[in-house]
């Protein structure tokens, strides 16, 4: 986190040329005082961040190299990388990693297409813009667990309405096999987070100069050409940020799967795997190893987006 000093008109602190003119001692004192103030203002937030994020992360790493099981208080000890070896050598981990990646890729892809369509429509909306934008956000405002329950009950053979719809067998058990269960889980994810994607893309669309479209139209470009040659390239920063956020989010999918199948029918995600080790088995060592691995994977995804695909994180984007 960088310390942001408000710019002083005519006297930017720290510049050599100005320091000579204004007299060295005065500027240095003032700079020092401002630095100090800035540090003091930031300190509580930094301390809070250290307490609530850095400490738990470090603690998880420490636990992950130990045998710690709350049910067996005596058996504690350092085991090095044994827990990681146990996780990485388990077919369950790879199975769940595949499931998680599958849900992430499919749901983010669908969200991207739908979100783009929604954003384009909202961008062009002639009347009721505020109302449309607000109402589109409703699914995103619903608590994930509640949304998951709503979809679960809708598809449940005994209570749901879905099996009463035409072309669907009345006793279809949606959560009784893997691919049907995945379908409902992905639908829930898509329904819930498409609005988020749409809003991020809408913000991106708003930054594109309308003059470009007019010029293109004068040059005879059709709607598709305008979309591909103007909208997409100029939307790339917003698009990548939206994809980054959603991918990181989707990779940690937990609620929908937990409510709908609890991970049965081979629909378990890595987060549920971690939950099972940590919360159900109280095997903190093994569970922390799973958590740390998920953390590393999330870092990796962020790294790929930022470095390889060139996603501008908001702070860099401001300067461009």
């Amino acid at each position: 986190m960088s310390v942001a000093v408000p710019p002083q008109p005519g006297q930017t602190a720290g510049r050599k040329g100005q320091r000579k003119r204004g007299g060295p001692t005065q500027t240095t004192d003032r700079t020092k005082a401002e630095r100090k103030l800035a540090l003091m203002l930031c300190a509580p937030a930094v301390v809070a961040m250290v307490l609530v994020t850095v400490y738990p992360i470090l603690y998880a790493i420490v636990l992950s190299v130990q045998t710690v099981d709350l049910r067996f208080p005596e058996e504690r000890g350092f085991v090095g990388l044994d827990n990681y070896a146990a996780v990485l050598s388990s077919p369950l981990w790879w199975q769940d990693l595949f499931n998680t990646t599958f849900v992430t890729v499919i749901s983010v892809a669908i969200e991207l297409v739908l979100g783009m369509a929604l954003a384009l429509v909202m961008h062009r909306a002639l009347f009721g813009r505020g109302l449309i934008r607000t109402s589109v956000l409703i699914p995103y405002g619903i608590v994930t667990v509640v949304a998951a329950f709503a979809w679960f009950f809708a598809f449940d053979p005994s209570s749901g309405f879905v099996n009463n719809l035409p072309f669907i067998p009345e006793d279809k058990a949606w959560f009784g096999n893997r691919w049907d269960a995945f379908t409902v889980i992905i639908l829930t994810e898509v329904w819930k987070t498409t609005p988020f994607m749409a809003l991020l893309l809408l913000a991106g669309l708003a930054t594109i100069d309308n003059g470009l479209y007019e010029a293109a139209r004068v040059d005879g470009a059709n709607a598709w050409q305008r979309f591909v040659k103007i909208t997409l390239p100029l939307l790339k920063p917003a698009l990548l940020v939206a994809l980054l956020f959603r991918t990181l989010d989707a990779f940690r999918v937990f609620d929908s799967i937990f409510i709908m199948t609890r991970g049965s029918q081979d629909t378990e995600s890595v987060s549920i795997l971690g939950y099972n080790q940590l919360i159900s088995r109280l095997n903190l060592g093994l569970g922390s190893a799973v958590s740390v691995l998920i953390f590393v994977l999330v870092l990796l995804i962020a790294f790929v987006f930022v470095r390889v695909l060139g996603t501008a994180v908001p702070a860099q984007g401001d300067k461009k």
Partner: protein
Amino acid sequence: MRRGMVIAIAAVALACGLAACGGDDESAGGGVTLNWFIFNEPSGGPQKVAERCSQQSNGAYTINFEYLPAQADAQREQLVRRLGAEDSSLDLLGLDVVWTGEFANARWLAPIPADTEQAVTENVFEPVLDTARFEDDLVVVPIWSNTQLLWYRKDRVPQAPETWDEMIDIGERLGPDTGRIQIQGNRYEGLVVWANALIESAGTSILSAPKEILLEETPTEQALGIMGRLSNSRVAAPNITTSNEDSARLGFEAGNSTFQINYPFVYPSAKTNAPDVFEQMEAARYPAVDADKPSKPPIGGINIGVSSFSQHKEEAFEAIECLVKPENQLEIAELGGLPPVRSDLYDRPEIEKVYPGFADLVRESIQNAGPRPSQSPAYQDLSLAIQRALHPTTKIDAQNPQSTYEELRNNVEKAIKREGLL
């Protein structure tokens, strides 16, 4: 700064919540407040007897209810999180029968004084006491039990089948429009209940000691074969791989089922929800695997423990002695239909009203029950491992259950050693 303050306030609020701030330790009567962490039993029976005991204690203690979630998994998670953090605000713990080994091994249960043990074990069913012992010591006190029965339609079958095969034969003869069989097959504890009852009824057990596997091959494969046969039968419920007690109950009430394996709560439920079905509903003993070997029905229920971090252990044991008194067990049975743990109570006329015509059957079922391996300190691992090996039960080959057997054995062995992911 504001953020820091908000977090500080939140932290204080959280700490307060956890430690039950407010110093409500001293109740009006001058005695201690005992916090009983248990799920909210909908009939209100436990609350009623707790209130009576508090009054009878002459101000020595007041029992205060702290409700846990309705689902057993979620109850356990809350309890172990608090106990893992040595929370002293827990006094009495409402524990599922399968958590005994785990809680005792982790030293979360205060040892039971000898005079209390004497008072609370009198006339209690032996299988129930099995669920309350760890390494031969009584560590928790049974308050109510539960067991599964075979519920069937007397208009479709004159006499209840004695074995699983017989039941499936009858169902298949009736066909899927009337002959369906309702059971619990989702990947959760209910599946372990089913599997364990079959394995026990076949004549073997999952464990022979807290850390030793038994699972003899022939009887286990016989049990697995039945699971496979039923699951792949055309009279299995269409949702068998996701079914639980409630979906089984609803399936039976819908009318196209002739058989249901379930706890006695389905009886009053049918009375209000499906009177036509209720008219024809009859109970029988849990089916056997072999005609010449009596079945070993599942057993459930709640045991009470005293937290070893409690600061009022003496009063807590006093309270337990009161809670499990015969008249209180009867009251809980009358209000919520929960079977008493004392065998002598089944001769009382009040019980005949709770289980009209099948009170003796409930007693017989509990008396002969085959408990799940709750003496294992790693029961949760065991349960997850069994669920993973057997779910979905439709994949079990009824003719050749050997591969499922290998997987089950392998998983149980790993779970006992607590190796690898589950």
